[in-house]
């Protein structure tokens, strides 16, 4: 069973045009910096081509754009932050490689994942190399921004790395130990650590530090980043249940992986006892043991129990909370294109292609 998504419509909202234009501009600047850091005097076999693969597939460049927009909205220049934006994108892509292996994912941005193309060992090696390459621009910050500011950026980077590892460990651990007693609070904790910290909070903190030359408090954007990340993650999980080639991941892959999504937690909570027994039995299976029939049953269970609609509603609520926190974090700053971009990310989460 699949869930039809609303028909795509062209947007006439100038706010969208702002988001799209900023993503395009900041994405191009970041890609140039990424290419600079990935350039090598000599071509390393079985490595350099693999490292260049994911960045070459495109991507929306949301994370580095958040970094650059924060740098500018807090008064900085793009050229001061573009190296750090490159670090954000490099680290993100390195983590994607490892995520795909850990999830045994088959598609990334519409093409086979790196480990499907080259095998797990080489893909892990490429991911390691890319994450280590991400350190280079952060080290370069010592020259560009001075040791104090560069160190503060490294500090928030270290904190992000810890949070992200904890979040990934939670998700993997829940699946590996087949935890079925999770609550929404558990889910939000995982989203905060696994998604929001690396994808939204950290890029915003880095940009904020650069833009304010270390004067603004990195903590001030944590809540905005968290709620934006929660809306983003729930929408991402919903899209996994809807057929759309542009999504770039396998349909229902999250169900095959028994990923602990808000829909799964809700369905298990509200379904009948017999359905819960069957669901728990399904969750005990390994991925390769789960059949298409089982997955379609689970998808239908989620639909029948209102779990899809529930998750959509909660995603909207998270967006509302993000808007609230945006006003607190950025409301006092003067109007600007970058401020509009950051505010526009909230509806964009639901409309992105």
């Amino acid at each position: 069973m699949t869930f039809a998504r609303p028909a795509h419509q062209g947007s006439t909202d100038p706010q969208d045009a702002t988001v799209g234009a900023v993503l395009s501009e900041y994405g191009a600047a970041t890609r140039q910096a990424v290419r600079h850091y990935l350039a090598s005097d000599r071509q390393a076999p079985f490595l350099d081509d693999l490292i260049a693969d994911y960045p070459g597939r495109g991507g929306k460049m949301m994370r580095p754009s958040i970094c650059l927009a924060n740098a500018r909205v807090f008064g900085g220049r793009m050229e001061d932050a573009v190296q750090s934006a490159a670090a954000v994108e490099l680290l993100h892509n390195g983590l994607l490689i490892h995520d795909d292996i850990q999830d045994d994912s088959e598609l990334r941005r519409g093409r086979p994942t790196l480990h499907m193309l080259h095998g797990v060992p080489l893909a892990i090696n490429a991911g390691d190399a890319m994450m280590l390459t991400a350190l280079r621009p952060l080290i370069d910050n010592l020259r560009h921004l001075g040791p104090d500011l560069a160190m503060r950026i490294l500090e928030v980077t270290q904190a992000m790395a810890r949070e992200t590892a904890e979040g990934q460990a939670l998700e993997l651990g829940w699946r590996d130990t087949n935890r079925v007693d999770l609550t929404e609070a558990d889910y939000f904790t995982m989203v905060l650590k696994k998604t929001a910290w690396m994808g939204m909070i950290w890029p915003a903190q880095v940009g904020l530090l650069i833009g304010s030359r270390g004067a603004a408090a990195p903590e001030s954007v944590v809540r905005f980043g968290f709620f934006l990340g929660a809306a983003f993650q729930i929408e991402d999980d919903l899209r996994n249940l809807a057929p759309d080639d542009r999504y770039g991941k396998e349909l229902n892959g999250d169900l095959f992986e028994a990923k602990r999504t808000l829909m799964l937690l809700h369905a298990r909570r509200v379904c009948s006892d017999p359905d819960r027994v069957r669901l728990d039995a399904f969750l005990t299976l390994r991925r390769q043991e789960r059949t298409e029939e089982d997955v379609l049953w689970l998808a239908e269970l989620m639909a029948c129990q209102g779990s899809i609609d529930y998750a959509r509603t909660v995603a909207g609520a998270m967006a509302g909370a993000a808007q609230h926190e945006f006003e607190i974090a950025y409301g006092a700053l003067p109007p600007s294109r970058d401020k509009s971009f950051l505010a526009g990310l909230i509806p964009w989460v639901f409309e992105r292609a």
Partner: protein
Amino acid sequence: MPPTDRVKRPLPEDFGPDRSGWSRPGATSANIGKQSPDASANDRSHDQAPPPGGNDTQYSDAVADSVKLAYAVIRENIAQGRAAASKFRDGEYNVREVPHDVNVLSLRLLHLTRELSRTSFDILEGILSNPRTPGATAWRPAPPHQDPRQFHPGAGPFTYDWNYTGAPVRQGPAQPDTQTIPIGCVFTGGRDAQVRSATLSRPQGPTHLALPVLASLKAGSPPIMGAAITPASGPYGVIVNVEIPNTQPAGVYGGAILDDQGYAVGALTIEVFAEAT
């Protein structure tokens, strides 16, 4: 990206920020979304989202609860971060003080990283294809006072009383009470089977359960390994997932369920049917 290429999803009717969830009783629309009077100077957000108080805005309790929960999560995380930062400053931080489950999972991640650093890719692939958290369902050696051969796979016949009805296999210093926990059994793999008997005493405290081996009395029949025990719901206490290989000889197999100290707290006996002709 041209606007016409964008995916457009109809927005919910009440998509705009619904701030009534954070307004104090008596708040007006003029101060909704602003700092509450009792918010501390260092905490500009309203982490403590009060229950809906206004009559002018309708929204579901579920949405309010979700937002409230999310605020509780971020509040807790920030509090932990502040505490950790304080300890870092004082040079007292110890990774052992993080919550136990996070600690265990982090150790597993460290283990994986260690494997990576050794580029033991074959090992890693094995972990990825059959992930287990150490201690959850993996093999555990018997305590020193027990004969390790009794439970060790491939180390001799499994001496088990098939008429066992619920008492622990061996007496240990920490006996569970006599209250039993229901067991559900799921068979996977290519062979049919049924449960002959299943018993599990309630442990005295939280523990990991393991069923490392289901052995046959029939000489020469290989044991069934790798049964996984997971918590269940509803009328079931735990679910035992037994994968039976296609080549498994028909017969009766049994094994003890062990707690995380290696003491038996239950047993499972199954009958594997002959391969369908």
